[in-house]
């Protein structure tokens, strides 16, 4: 069948099962936008290309399916680089299609030309400049395969305009669809080495103070059930990193919650005092380890990751297993049972009571505000948490509000927490929540955002209003770049430099209304619940609530940057 590159691209996306594209057209990608009119694929017209990328990420986080974004060349390609880098850091499956100037114009500084594959090389799992229209079906097939298998990640396809323009002979091709993908240099290993699995099982069954260190890889491997089974088999406590919140239900007695720079005392200290860390799909990020030399210094390490480059990158494991977390955990469970689990194991009652002692002594705390004072952000989050469905999806931006949400929310289901962990992209929440809601229209989706973050990507609420995507945004508005303010207060002698934003410039309620959303402002504790209830009832447009919160509130606990996790500061009274 004779076809052209543009039609072949859309057809290939349909065959890959794509149901939605987040995008914004422009000169070089124009020919591809024509066949979209006749395609069953839904296109969501964003207001800024960064929004398209984060929406695709939010969609992928919520559904497990690859998110797809399509934008034009030049400035559109550069605008989507932040989402690419974000997806690369957090291993989010995503395929981004960029238009490129015509083949003859490449390298001539043509209008809206940038070297997109050059610029994106270090922030994509793979990228490809199409040089021949006949390659389009194969390259699309390969892109989805690479994005979704092994350690997932973003793949970019850059397509020159002449190859997709039906009026140009360069776009002609005979349609085909490859049966399989043939990539000689790409063979991710999925099952674990049986000898190493046995070694790991021996370490686990002998450990007196084991802790499972669950990371985002558990979600990518769809391994939450396997994780639960492993933890319950030997009663091993589990910490869930920022990327892994929800992999183990927070209401499960074995779940210790979040470790790291703003982790709770028990999660941080259990890792620190453990004699065996079982790292599953986690990467010993500096925000988790604190000072690496002082991190869990008595612990042996089992490290399971599908990416062999993670094993030994930060901490050399005693047993390092390359493989898919779900398969390896299942293999580990079998191996443990073969050597007598759960009957055979040391008495761990002392370890358990130590842990529960920490939990009692060091819960997360804050002091409720006095009447007439601004809201405490933790209080708003508790109200939001307790008055939304258990399977509500929550997205956040980056900063204090992100940490409080990660701390105070009860994540009892996987794929309910969406945030920017590795790159720390402010402005992530609004578009990510929109993408998540598009992927999971059956779920309630809230974004918890900061006022600084909100101002970076709020324009996508216009997209959400136009497309009738009823996301709900809670702005914890403390009128500051709060996390920076916290560091200036604690580490720069309260010299506040360029962090003040003003509580009412812009007027968030009016801004929300101008964008077609329901806008509300809440200033006192008794108004928090009614506002949340009112927001929950809106199902035909986005809602934005401007919660006026106390800027003096800091995120605790905190392990100061560069310090050992043993130097954790539990609360303001503990500051030294």
């Amino acid at each position, binding site marked *: 069948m004779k076809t052209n590159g543009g039609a072949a691209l859309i057809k290939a996306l349909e065959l890959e099962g794509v149901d939605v594209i987040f995008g914004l057209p422009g000169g070089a990608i124009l020919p591809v936008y024509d066949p979209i009119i006749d395609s069953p694929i839904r296109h969501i017209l964003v207001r800024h290309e960064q929004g398209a990328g984060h929406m695709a990420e939010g969609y992928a986080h919520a559904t497990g399916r690859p998110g797809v974004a399509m934008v034009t060349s030049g400035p559109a390609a550069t605008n989507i680089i932040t989402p690419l880098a974000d997806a690369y850091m957090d291993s989010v499956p995503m395929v981004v299609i960029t238009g490129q100037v015509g083949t003859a114009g490449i390298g001539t500084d043509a209008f809206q030309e940038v070297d997109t*594959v*050059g610029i994106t*090389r270090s922030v994509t799992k793979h990228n490809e400049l199409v040089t021949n229209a006949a390659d389009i079906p194969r390259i699309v097939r390969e892109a989805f395969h*690479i994005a979704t298998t092994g350690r997932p990640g973003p793949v970019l396809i850059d397509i020159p305009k002449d190859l997709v323009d039906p009026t140009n002979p360069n776009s002609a091709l005979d349609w085909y669809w490859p049966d399989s993908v043939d990539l000689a*240099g790409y063979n991710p290993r999925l099952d674990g080495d049986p000898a190493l699995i046995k070694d790991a099982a021996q370490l686990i069954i002998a450990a007196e103070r084991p802790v499972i260190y669950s990371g985002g890889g558990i979600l990518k491997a769809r391994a939450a059930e396997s994780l639960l089974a492993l933890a319950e088999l030997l009663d091993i406590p589990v910490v869930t990193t920022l990327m892994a919140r929800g992999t183990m239900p927070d209401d499960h007695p074995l779940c210790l919650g979040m470790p790291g720079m703003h982790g709770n005392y028990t999660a941080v200290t259990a890792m620190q005092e453990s004699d065996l860390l079982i790292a599953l799909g986690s990467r010993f990020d500096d925000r988790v380890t604190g000072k690496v030399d002082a991190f869990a210094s008595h612990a042996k390490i089992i490290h399971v990751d599908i990416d062999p*480059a993670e094993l*030994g990158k930060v901490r050399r494991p005693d047993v390092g297993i390359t493989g898919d977390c779900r398969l390896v955990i299942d293999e580990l469970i079998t191996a443990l049972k073969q050597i007598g689990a759960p009957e055979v194991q040391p008495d761990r009652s002392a370890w358990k009571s130590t842990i529960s002692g920490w939990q009692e002594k060091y819960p997360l705390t804050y002091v409720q505000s006095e009447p007439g004072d601004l809201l405490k952000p933790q209080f708003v989050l508790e109200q939001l948490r307790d008055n939304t469905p258990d399977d509500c999806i929550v997205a956040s931006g980056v900063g204090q509000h992100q940490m409080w949400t990660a701390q105070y929310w009860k994540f009892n289901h996987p794929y309910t927490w969406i945030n920017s962990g590795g790159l720390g992209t402010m402005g992530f929440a609004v578009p990510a929540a929109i993408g998540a809601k598009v992927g999971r229209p059956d779920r309630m989706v809230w974004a918890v955002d900061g006022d600084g973050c909100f101002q970076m990507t709020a324009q996508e609420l216009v997209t959400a209003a136009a497309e009738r995507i009823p996301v709900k945004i809670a702005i914890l508005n403390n009128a500051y770049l709060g996390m920076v303010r916290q560091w200036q207060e604690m580490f720069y002698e309260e010299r506040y430099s360029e962090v003040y934003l003003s509580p009412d410039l812009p007027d968030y309620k009016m801004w929300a209304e101008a964008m077609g959303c329901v806008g509300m402002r809440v200033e006192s504790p008794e108004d928090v619940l009614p506002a949340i209830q009112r927001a929950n009832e809106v199902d035909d447009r986005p809602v934005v609530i401007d919660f006026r919160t106390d800027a003096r509130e800091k995120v605790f606990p905190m392990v100061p940057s560069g310090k050992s996790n043993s130097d954790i500061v539990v609360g303001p009274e503990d500051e030294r």
Partner: protein
Amino acid sequence: MSPAMRHHILSVLVENKPGVLARVSGLFARRGFNIFSLAVAPTDDATRSRITIVVDVESAPLEQITKQLDKLINVLQIDELAPIDAVERELMIVTVTVSAESKPELLSLTEEYSGAVLDESGDRITVSLGGTPEALDAFTSQMGTAVVAYQRTGRIALPRITP
């Protein structure tokens, strides 16, 4: 070169495609590691190229870079070649000034290095020499100030087949 650093030779088999060299070299550039020498050419299979990279890196970061190289879709195989396990050669073209007295010495050295005279005019002569990188180093230092200019290919290497 600090004591902890030393030459490492990586032999990287890649797909013979545009941009692959940039992907490979980018992983070194990202960390600020200098590539000491680089040789690239297609192999017996024209769809593949072999890149021989010599870098001065400590062993630990090199192991990490090697793993990251292996993640590149277009990279098929990576071998780190310990000098003792590899045969190595490098080609050099060198222009030197000669006098009537020194010319015979140069010609005999050229022969010793299985070289050839490529060009000659007045008191200048250009020869090509092949050998181990160390031998080429020895040649240039022996020639001393007589060297006008030279270009080396960077080393190429294959694993030894003798046990």
